[in-house]
């Protein structure tokens, strides 16, 4: 199997004059857990949507194991799974019905589905609610069943957009462990997140996007060596690169003024 699982080649998206994503070139290796970071509106979700076939690129290619998702959508989609930040699922399906539907689409054999579904529902504490309608689920539960749906067919590449938002600490921890474990077994994960600790702890490599451009790319060690400060955390590097340092200074000035009053 091709060792490059995700390849963004000059990938761009423009809305009239506004450039949302500007000629991105990134490669993610098989089994890698890739963190995609950036401030609000930087182009993270747009990039993920182009990679999952939800948004057509203005230019460039989005390749999944060498298959262009826009030229051969079905073949590419057979390899991926996607969990959006706001998983709008079918409200009138139960959690179990939803998993069964996904498994039917991916032609997962009956027995394999049953074992996998039960395992995932158990990991995310959804076994009790599996036969409740999704409309009765909380945001976190919807997020969890969407993750179960994404993993039930054992995808080669998993795209996650802000996966920990809405998850309780236990489920967030379980997800982190599960992702690490799955990636160690060959699955590739492309994870967009705002929570920098997660990226720092979990990811093999991170890419930071700002105004549609990749401004940093590499492992934690590489990023630290690029910034020439070994003791810096990912948060420091992120703020420095994305201009957050100025806001940080402003906040500390405001608070110090407040202290003196």
């Amino acid at each position: 199997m091709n060792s490059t699982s995700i390849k963004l080649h000059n990938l761009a998206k423009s809305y009239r004059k506004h450039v949302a994503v500007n000629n991105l070139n990134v490669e993610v290796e098989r089994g890698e857990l890739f963190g995609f970071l950036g401030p609000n509106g930087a182009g993270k979700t747009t990039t993920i949507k182009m990679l999952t076939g939800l948004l057509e690129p203005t230019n460039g290619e989005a390749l999944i194991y060498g298959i262009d998702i826009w030229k051969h959508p079905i073949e590419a989609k057979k390899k991926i799974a996607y969990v959006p930040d706001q998983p709008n699922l079918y409200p009138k399906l139960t959690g179990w019905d939803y998993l069964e539907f996904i498994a039917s689409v991916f032609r997962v054999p009956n027995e394999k589905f049953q074992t996998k579904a039960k395992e995932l529902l158990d990991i995310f504490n959804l076994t009790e609610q599996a036969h409740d309608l999704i409309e009765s689920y909380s945001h976190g539960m919807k997020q969890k069943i969407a993750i179960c749906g994404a993993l039930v067919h054992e995808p080669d590449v998993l795209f996650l957009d802000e996966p920990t938002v809405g998850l309780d600490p236990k489920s967030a921890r379980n997800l982190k462990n599960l992702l690490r474990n799955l990636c160690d077994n060959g699955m590739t994960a492309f994870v967009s997140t705002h929570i920098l600790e997660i990226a720092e702890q979990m990811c093999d490599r991170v890419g930071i996007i700002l105004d549609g451009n990749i401004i940093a790319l590499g492992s934690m060690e590489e990023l630290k060596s690029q910034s020439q400060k070994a003791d810096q955390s990912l948060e420091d590097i992120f703020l420095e690169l994305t201009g957050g340092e100025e806001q940080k200074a402003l906040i500390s000035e405001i608070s110090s003024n407040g202290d003196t009053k």
Partner: protein
Amino acid sequence: MMKVLLHNQWKILVNTVRSQPKKNYISYLVMLGVITVLLYFVSKGVLEIGESISENVMSGLLSYGFLMVIGFIILLGLPQIFKHLFAATDLNLLFTMPIPTKNIFWIKYLQSFIGTPLMVFLLFIVPIYLYGIIIEANLLYYPVVFLVLTSITVIGQSLAYLFNLILVQVVPASRANEFMTVMSVLSGILVYLMFMIPNLTSELPLTERLLAGLPLFPKWVPVTWGSNAILAAKDGSIDLIVPLVMILLLASLFILVSLILVDKGFRTGWIRLSESGGKKKKKKSNLDKSKVFIHHPIIAIGKKEWYSIKRDIREWLVFMPIIFFFVFGFIGFLSGGANISDIQGPNEITWPIAQGIFLFIYAMFNGQIASTAIAREARSYWILQVLPLSGKDISFGKLWISWLIPFVILTVIEIIIGTLLGWSLIQFVSGIALKGVITVGISGIGLWLGTIGAKYNPANPQNRLRFSISIILLISSYIYLILALIPYILLMIPVTTIDFIQEVGNEATGFIGFVANIIFTVLTWKAEQPLLVGAIGIVIMLFISLGVSYIFTLASARKIDKGIEIEIVRDTNSKSLFNKKTGVFNK
């Protein structure tokens, strides 16, 4: 406080108007055009016959008109009021601020006058004023008409509010949306019964009594007060005072009762509905006993659609007209003094008539159900987009289920009716098979129109097709039906009519003559080779229906592959699901 709230509403209104896309202005213009045309025809009617209308006839017209005002407001305004009272997004903020509940209620109450009540008010006041000008009514006539019509509108609106305030106390929070739709149907029945009041008081038909100037309602009915006040004001008579005061008092009483119920119904109702369904008794899951059915993707899509339809009461409302049609039709038949035995027996008459009626119903429903299958995805459409499904999988998956549901329901009804009428087995089988084949084509057309005219309105989730497309759907369903039925009709015409058809063909010219000659030729063949002609007719019919279905389903698949555009109706003040006017989903 009211000043602040009103100012805020005004700013919201101004900003909403300013930020409207140009497309919306076109729909406003169309709406204005429709109202103008309606007003033009009503006004023209008033101008032509205004002077010749006697006072008694006018009294009947006004009373019935007022009843219509109340009926329209209840029927059309009920869901809107529910939205204003319990689904508006600003309530979350307003209830956390130190604003008395009554003030919030008043704002919502005033806000809800813009819309159906205002439109109905305008549609009525213009012709009534015009009538006043023609008959040179006393000056008092105009303010009295205004006051009476305002009171009637307030009564209608308050009734709709009271209905909502009471309703919210009995609805389980988790079923609010579905229950609301069912209540809309019940309100429809209520309004229907309201309009039946005049029929209950007399044996004569309504129009006959109206034209004869006979009273439609008893004197104590409030709509009679309104018409009495207006007719007295026309002559400047002092008799206007009592009925006018009574109707004004009644309107005030309605407002008062609504206000009394506010604390109980409004805030507590909103809190009830805002609560999650957490109180619902939960079934304990037993995954070990779960039956697993992994199907082909086309079956899985249809099954998913079936779950969405089965578990949402609102989806079934599309079949309400069938119930109205059969139940009221049956009641009407029996109440007319007839017996079922009267129509049992002449199968050769009842069967073709029933087939015609059923095909008419299929044409109405199959297309509609199939067309809504696309927009049903709404905000969940991303799931189908990221899954390895081709447009063909999706369109055929949606086609089979949207064809099967009406087919099963109508077949059950047909079996019941056929059994009552004593049809033969051949009649049952051939009728059901014929309709089963022909209706696939309608479903195919409906599905394709659904892909080009999908619309999603969070405030009205069952309204899933753009207006223009729904009109095209209606027309195309019937055109298709006529075309597909041609071979069938030719098969049905008995050979014994051959001489008559030949006569028509010889005498008539133009299109009729042409058609008669074709029929004559077919009948000649049929007389010689009945079985062969029958078989060819069936093959042609199959070819037309299955061909149309296949072509349109493939066209839908291509459209799905290219990307479906679901128009998202944005409503700034109600719980919106999308942040943009139009959601484009590319697959």
